[in-house]
């Protein structure tokens, strides 16, 4: 399959994501420049982490107006796979492809650290290689990852089983202490209603090689690859 990694001005996990796709998973992968209108016939679009437009105004608020986002919206509406990681998640929220918004972390500091995540739903293209309840160790690195949405939205994403990842203790228990950024419902990752668009604050590309300390992020990429192969 072929992946496309969107490059906004200020993206800084674009190279990392491309490297992992190409050299760890041996997939075809290409950069997609934000000013163009061409998705280069990719099967999955990834919006990488970083500080698109410096996070000025509000994280993701300016990037959502990039020309390429029209194509991404259209691609998603046709059922194409779109994954937003960290800043990419924020952009997807600004685009309206995913619900909710990100507030500043509860301790008002940038946080870069490993967190434990409980996999809540393995019926999505992004998580099918995992087990429900499986605990993953993947790092986060963000200032605004405190998931917020009004009660009715929270209710509906719960009802539709849109929550894919929750911050948890190493044993999988949910707690306020494990919920490092203060997200409602310990939410670390969600999908849209159709399940073809996912946003996650943790960085799976930083946890795909043992030398870097964890390989738990592989599940996300392997799921996407498996799903695409099955579809074929």
């Amino acid at each position, binding site marked *: 399959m072929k992946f496309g990694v969107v490059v906004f*001005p*200020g993206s*800084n*996990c674009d*190279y*990392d994501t491309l*490297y*992992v796709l190409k*050299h760890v998973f041996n997939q075809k992968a290409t950069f997609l420049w934000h*000013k163009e209108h061409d998705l280069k016939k990719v099967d999955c679009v990834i919006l990488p*982490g*970083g*500080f698109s*437009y*410096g*996070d*000025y105004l509000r994280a993701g608020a300016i990037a959502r107006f990039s020309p390429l986002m029209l194509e991404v919206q259209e691609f998603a509406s046709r059922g194409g796979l779109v994954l937003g990681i960290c800043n990419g998640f924020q952009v997807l929220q600004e685009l309206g492809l995913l619900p909710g918004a990100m507030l500043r972390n509860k*301790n*008002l*500091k*940038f*946080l*870069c*650290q490993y967190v434990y995540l409980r996999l809540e739903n393995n019926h999505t293209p992004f998580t099918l290689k995992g087990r429900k309840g499986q605990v993953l160790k993947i*790092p986060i*690195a963000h*200032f605004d990852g405190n998931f917020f949405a009004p009660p009715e939205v929270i209710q509906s994403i719960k009802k539709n089983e849109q929550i894919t990842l929750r911050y948890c203790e190493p044993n999988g228990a949910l707690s306020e202490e494990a919920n490092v950024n203060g997200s409602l419902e310990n939410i670390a990752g969600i999908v849209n209603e159709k399940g073809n668009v996912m946003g996650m604050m943790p*960085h799976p*590309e*930083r946890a795909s*090689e043992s*030398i*870097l*300390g964890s390989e738990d992020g592989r599940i996300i990429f392997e799921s996407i690859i498996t799903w695409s192969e099955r579809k074929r």
Partner: protein
Amino acid sequence: MDKKAIEEHNLTLDEYKRIVELIGREPNITELGIFSLMWSEHCSYKSSKIHLKKFPVKGKNVIQGPGENAGVVDIGDGLLAVFKIESHNHPSFIEPFQGAATGVGGILRDIFTMGARPIALLDSLRFGPLSNPKNKAIMDGVVSGIAAYGNSVGVPTVGGEIYFNECYSLNPLVNVCCVGIGRKNKLFRARAEGVGNPVLYVGSKTGRDGIHGATMASAEFGEDSEKKRPNVQVGDPFKEKLLLEACLEVMDKDLIVGIQDMGAAGITCSTAEMAAKSRMGIEIELDRVPQREESMTPYEIMLSESQERMLLVAKKDKVSKIQKIFAKWDLDAVVIGKVTKGNRLRVFSGGEKVVDLPLDAIVNLCPVYDRESRYPSYLEKSTQIELPLLPDDYNQVLLKLLSSPTIASKEWVFRQYDHMVQINTILLPGADASLLRIKKKRKALALTLDGNSLYTYLDPRRGGKIAVAEACRNLSCVGAYPIGATNCLNFGNPEKPEIMWQFKEVIEGISEACRIFKVPITGGNVSFYNETEGAPIYPTPVLGILGILEDYQKAVSPGFKKGAEIIILLGENKEELGASEYLKTIFHLEGGMPPEIDLNEEKRVQELCREAILKGLIVSAHDVSEGGLAVCLSECAFLSEEKIGFEINLEDELRPDALLFGESQSRIVVTCTEDSLKKIESIAEKKKVKMKILGKIGGKRIIIQYRKKKIVDLPLEMALECWEKTIPSIFKLS
């Protein structure tokens, strides 16, 4: 020119006379501004130049030594490591967030100016005690500023060090080090060659910020330092990221002759230095300079230190290609002048010539001072101390040391830094050295910063040696060997003879150690005038040493690991308590002689450690430094994944407090299996290094026996909490 104007420009009357002589007339105000910057201590190194010549600068790996934007060493496989450390002390005191942020911005530009992509940042920070709210606010601002800039640009901040001492209360130190990787055939230098080649201004627009920044950094602060806030520049990491990508793209395509960032002294320094280095002249037109404020004078434009700007000298027919790349990244790229014959800097504004100066005078003919030096009067008294009585309760002493901010965990700081972006970070911050893999190769780069200023205060020469030795030891603890060094020398006012003496001694010490370790100095930075209201900081050299680990799978970290039970000490315990964190924290005594160092012995201990790591014989290694053996072992327990305790027995005939908390040099704590022990012993014998078995890892307690009698016995959990919670609890949101 009246005397007041000369004084305001921080020039002496003699210096002014020399300017008039050199240019054959009185300078106009813009020209005086140019001299004030270029002849400032910060830009000219006039007080340090003759002493810096003592550094060993040659080595087989050195591609570029001091004198460029950064040092460059060959790391094999056609790759180069480009690295440098710089201070941003003065601005960080006045405006901690922006001061530190722009420090990061500046050092990043120094690296990518040379064609290398920055892959890691490290910071050496010094603050006054956190009991003072002002110091706390400074530290919070500095850490946030570093985080805001580095995180946004996407260069991981992977390590560094933080010390606390009263001497930094009104003069914090912010030293930022960056390393980048470039290709051997793509190294760029600050050159303005080829008559008629166009000079391009790229990046942010010029504003009135930072005017006289370099001059400010070349004087002491008085009570009015608050007023200097407008002299501090404001950083825009987003622009920097765009500039970085655009510059690297331009460099990749063979479109330019030379490039230099506009850092301290802005357009003035970049135009003058590039042309002077190439023995050419340069002409620029200020009307073409992109400006963000209206009606700026030539003086203001020439002296502005607005951030995120670069000067390029293009190949003649490549301008439109360059402009296209910068346009892609939404950046200005404007031709503002050209390279000329004749060694002069000419600046035009509104059709008039406003500057016409010989470049040699600006860049090369600044007076060089061999300033008077004198053995400091404080030394005799400070180094002779009476040792306190032995403490009753070693458990309490250890807990207190682990809670001292200098020793306590810095996780609160480094988790604010994105230390993983670029996916090369093999060891998390807190290890002896930072380790970065080189993608698609087996090799990793190791980098560490080191400098204990209490040692250098009490014996500058020895302190200088120890800074080099310990930095190399840190590298050895992860398995890497040193290949090059950079250094930041933070001192008080060089016009005071006692400060000058410290400076000269430190340089002698560093030079001697670098020669013995065969580590050339490839560049660095001198920061004088670190004094506020007449009180100087301790002399604080910070060494940044770069090393290579040939196979990163072999990397070793400090934490104990299951299955390797035996704890060994490489090196020897001695009865040395002078200048220790123990005396400082427990007895409020900053004195005595710092520990002795035998550089040859040190080298052998390090060789032993590296050889054993590369042969896979040892599984953890941690150097003994501040807080001594007891703190070192405790840290090994804290940093183990499973939080494994230990039990050791010490038999040495020394004062028990010296044994536990003394900071004798050339010691490394390692762990190994029963099987490896014999092999390590045989290498130690070959290297003539003393080693001894201390005890075993295991359990959930910290147990230290002194001649079979328990003198420390603590639950690991309790000690860990002291170490982990100290700094977060100081900064807790109320």
